[in-house]
């Protein structure tokens, strides 16, 4: 029973990984722009949730939406103020600009919130449920399920709606998209808004179940890179599977090998996979 509990717990954490990684896949995999600040977006989402709970009050629905909206607005602002100016420039400009942004956001958070770990005050989602003998914290269960639903929602938005089609058209061939009458700037801005918004709400969901400090962004961005690559660059569904698998591997290796080994196992398997199957799990050869 403990094994099942570990596995389910890993999958539920993996679902949140999937959600913020699908945001990165939109920018990195589809729009072909590496964003080193993506982990910081998740971290900021966690603090937005905290601020809303402390100063405004309200349940997960309220602080979750607040985190999504706040980060989406931030993502769009970052696109217009920073990304737009380096997007057609050399790769090094992209890397340095988002790496610098990551440092700026991280240390601003240190400055404002201090380096102490914090967690959300106990709320309606405290307590555990028992499903067929497996005990799960309600918070984890809700966060994981909502994350899966939102990831699938993002997938459907991109593949089933007119605006998703335009966004993917810009990602695939910017010039051809312009010839259709699409304004690429708007679609890029939307992609950044969706990407940061997904990271923000993933952060809020994470905050329901886990404590954090301003340095968590570093961990999350590495996980997101692993998940995006595993999922085959540019596939939201690929990120969903890869996120669940990554969470599962972490949980299982932490349980049987010890917590300090969980990252070694994840990144070790990642390197092995890139070696054997560089196109990712879901990628086409």
């Amino acid at each position, binding site marked *: 029973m403990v094994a099942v509990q570990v596995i389910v717990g890993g999958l539920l954490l993996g679902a949140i990984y999937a959600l913020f990684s699908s945001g990165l896949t939109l920018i990195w995999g589809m729009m072909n722009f590496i964003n080193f600040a993506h982990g910081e977006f998740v971290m900021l989402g966690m603090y937005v949730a905290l601020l809303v709970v402390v100063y405004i009050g309200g349940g997960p629905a309220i602080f979750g939406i607040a985190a999504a909206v706040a980060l989406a607005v931030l993502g769009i602002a970052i696109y217009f103020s920073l990304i737009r100016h380096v997007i057609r420039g050399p790769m090094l400009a992209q890397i340095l600009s988002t790496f610098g942004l990551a440092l700026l956001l991280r240390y601003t958070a240190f400055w404002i919130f201090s380096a102490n770990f914090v967690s959300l005050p106990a709320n309606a989602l405290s307590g555990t449920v028992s499903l067929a003998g497996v005990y799960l914290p309600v918070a984890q269960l809700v966060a994981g399920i909502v994350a899966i639903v939102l990831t699938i929602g993002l997938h459907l938005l991109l593949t089933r709606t*007119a605006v998703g*089609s*335009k966004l*993917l*058209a810009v990602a*695939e*061939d910017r*010039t*051809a*998209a*312009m*010839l*259709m*009458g*699409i*304004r*690429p700037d708007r679609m890029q801005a939307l992609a950044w808004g969706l990407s940061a918004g997904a990271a923000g709400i993933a952060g809020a969901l994470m905050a329901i179940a886990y404590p954090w400090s301003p340095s968590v962004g570093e961990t999350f961005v590495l996980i997101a890179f692993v998940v995006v690559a595993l999922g085959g660059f540019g596939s939201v569904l690929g990120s969903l599977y890869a996120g669940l698998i990554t969470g599962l591997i972490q949980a299982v290796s932490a349980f049987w090998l010890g917590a300090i080994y969980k990252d070694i196992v994840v990144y070790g398997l990642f390197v092995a996979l890139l070696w054997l199957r560089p196109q990712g799990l879901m990628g086409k050869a």
Partner: protein
Amino acid sequence: MSDLVVEHLEVRYGDLVGVADISLKVRAGQVVALLGSNGAGKTTTLNAIAGVVRPRGKVEWRGEQIAGQPAYAIVSKGLALSPEGWRLFVAQTVEQNLRLGATALADRARAAALFERVYALFPRLAERRRQLAGTLSGGERQMLALGRALMSEPQLLMLDEPSLGLAPAVVEALYDTLAELHRQGLTLLLAEQSILLALGIADYAYVLQTGRIALEGPAADLQKNEQVREIYLGIATRAAAP
């Protein structure tokens, strides 16, 4: 009164001259051909008119100077370009590609009628509407590229090397379709390497050489022109001989 007037068009890519000096006119209802070998400047000329590259000189559409405007603004004025190599969105379905083509439509309600028109013109596309564009054959891709351009209900349709890489039978079908569209009143500006094909459908033609107009005239005259026969048709007939 010409719909499209291009005067002293010049495009530079850094130090590289794409086109040096191109002037041309297209009247409503005409088929105008841009002829010339690879590198003569046909693609650059079309790209400059469509707003893909920024030109110097005058590009006037129905009296309005449009040179330097972005491509998404120009297509909504009724000038559509189907670019060289088709540039389909291969990761999306046939229907999604067509819907993307309708982005520039001012009247969104027109899209349904245009879908019907394109599917009537190319029943094959209707059969494959749920298929990814990347899975289509060369001929079907050409149909989709043309259909996608028609979805913006253009007043001037520019086609860049539409016959490139297609089997002869497919090319023939394509030119039948273009002739039919012309009969329905569509204005066409066509860049073609295949002179015989282009002069067969065009009313007027410009022959480009290293970024300049080397020769121009009614298509019927150019067909008889010794210079054209020697430079282009001569090569074409020799190449076609077994």
